[in-house]
C-alpha cells in the first residue's frame, strides 16, 4: 500500500491555502500568537505545555516550541488548544521541535 508522508500532505495543503489567499490561522502547521504589549500573550494551536514556572513557560505548537520568559507568569486560561498567559513577558524564543 502506497501512503503519502504526513509532512508532504501538510505542505500541499499549505501551498494550496497560500494560492487561495486563505488566512494563515486556518492553514495546518501555523499557530496564532498574539501579544498585548508585554503583559499578555494569547497562543492558539497549543499541543501541550512542556515547562511551566512563574519565570518561564514553554509551549508545544506542533512544529515549533515557543518559550516565553519573564516574571510572575500565569496561565489565565488553558482550554481548546488556547493558552492565555499573563505576567511580565521579557523574551520570546522559538525553536523547532
Amino acid at each position, binding site marked *: 500500500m502506497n501512503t503519502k508522508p504526513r509532512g508532504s500532505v501538510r505542505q500541499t495543503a499549505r501551498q494550496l491555502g497560500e494560492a487561495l489567499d486563505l488566512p494563515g490561522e486556518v492553514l495546518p502547521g501555523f499557530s496564532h500568537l498574539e501579544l498585548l504589549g508585554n503583559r499578555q500573550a494569547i497562543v492558539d494551536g497549543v499541543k501541550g505545555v512542556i515547562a*511551566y*514556572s512563574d519565570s518561564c513557560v514553554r509551549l508545544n505548537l506542533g512544529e515549533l516550541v515557543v518559550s516565553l520568559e519573564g516574571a510572575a507568569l500565569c*496561565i489565565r486560561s488553558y482550554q481548546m488548544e488556547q493558552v492565555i498567559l499573563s505576567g511580565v513577558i521579557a523574551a520570546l524564543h522559538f525553536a523547532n521541535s
Partner: protein
Amino acid sequence: MLLIHFLRFLRGYVCFRAAEGFPERFLNLCAAKGIAVWDVGFTDGSLFGCTDIAGYKAMRDCAKRSGMVLRLQKKHGLPFFLHRYRRRVGLLIGFVLFLAGLWALSGMVWSIEVQGNARVSTEVILAAFEEQGLKPGVPRRALNPVKMSEEAGKSLPDLSWLALNLRGSSAVIEVREIMQMEQAQEDAPQNIVAAKAGQLEIVEVYRGAALAKPGQAVLQGALLASGIVENKDGSARLVHAQAYAVARTQFSFAVQLPRTHTAAQVKIKKSHLTLRFLWFKIPLGKRPKPAQGELLLVSERVWNAGERLLPLALERCALLSFVEETTRVSDHQLRLQAARQLFVQFCAALSGAQVLTQQTETHLDSAACAITQNGAALENIGLAQEIGGK
C-alpha cells in the same frame, strides 16, 4: 470579562492546589480531557488554579496519572451558596415571595401623573380617567390607553388633546387645553364716555365723532366720542367709536382699621394617619368624625424614589375646630395692616395711571388707625359704552 466572571459565579467553581509530581503533564492531561482551567499559577513547587465543578471531579484522574496531590482550596459560586442555605426554608420562601411580589407589582400602575394642565384641575382629569378604570393598582395589561384617552376626552371638553402613556409602573396623562380667544366685537356700535370726572389733557378720537377737547372739564359719564356719525346727506350711521382720552383726575382713598378684631382661629383638635399601599388602606388609629362647626382636612403625602412616585402614601386627616378669638394688635402691626389695605385699593383704582401729586395722612389712636390718601393723577378715562346699553 465581567460577564465571564458572572457566568462562572452562576455555574460555580473551585480553586485547587496541586503539589509534587509533574505539573506540565497534569496541565496537558487536563487540556486533553477538555477540562477548563484558569488563573493557573506556579509558586513554591505547587500549581494552583481554578476550574468548574465537573472539571474538578474529572481532574482527580489527571492528578493521579501525573503523580500530583490535589487539594481543594476554596469553593465559589451560586451552587455552593444555595447548598449552604439549603435547610433555611424561610429564606427560600422569602426570596420566592420577593420575586413574586416584584413580578406582580411590576405589572401594575403605581402612580398617575397629569402633565400640561393649567385651567382644568388635576382632580377633574383623574376622575375622568378613573371612570375608565385607571387608578393605582390596576394591572397594566388590562388598560387600553388609546380607547381610555378617547372616552375620557369626551367628558373633558376643555381639553383639545390628551394621551395616556404608560411608562413602567407610572401612568402619565399628557393634556393640552383649549386656547380661549376673546373675540372682540368690533362691529357693535358704541360711545366713549368718561369713567371719572376730570380735566382732559389728551383726546385722540380714532373712530366716531369727537365731542370733547383737551382742556375741557368733564363729569363722570360725559360723552367724549359719539358712535352716531352724521353723513353728508344728513342721515346718521352707527359706528364702533374708539378714542384715547387722558384726564387729570383727583383721587382719595381712606382706610380705617380697629385695634381689636375678632377672627376665627384654626386649631387642630385631632389627627389620624392612614397608610395607603396601592388601593389598600391601613388605618393607624380611629378616624375622627367632625362635629358641628368642625372640618375634616385630608392631605396625602406620596413617597417617591427620585422622580418616580411609589405606590405608598401616608394620608393625614386633621380635625379642625374654629375658635373665635379677639386679638389686639400693636401700633406697628396696625399701621402695616392699614397701609397694606390702602395699597390694595390704590393698585386696583389707579392701575396704569401716572400719579402727579399725593398726600398721605395717618391718624393712630388707642381704638383705631385711619389712613387717608389724596392726590392727582393722569389716567385714561375713556370707557366704551354700547349704544342702547348701560
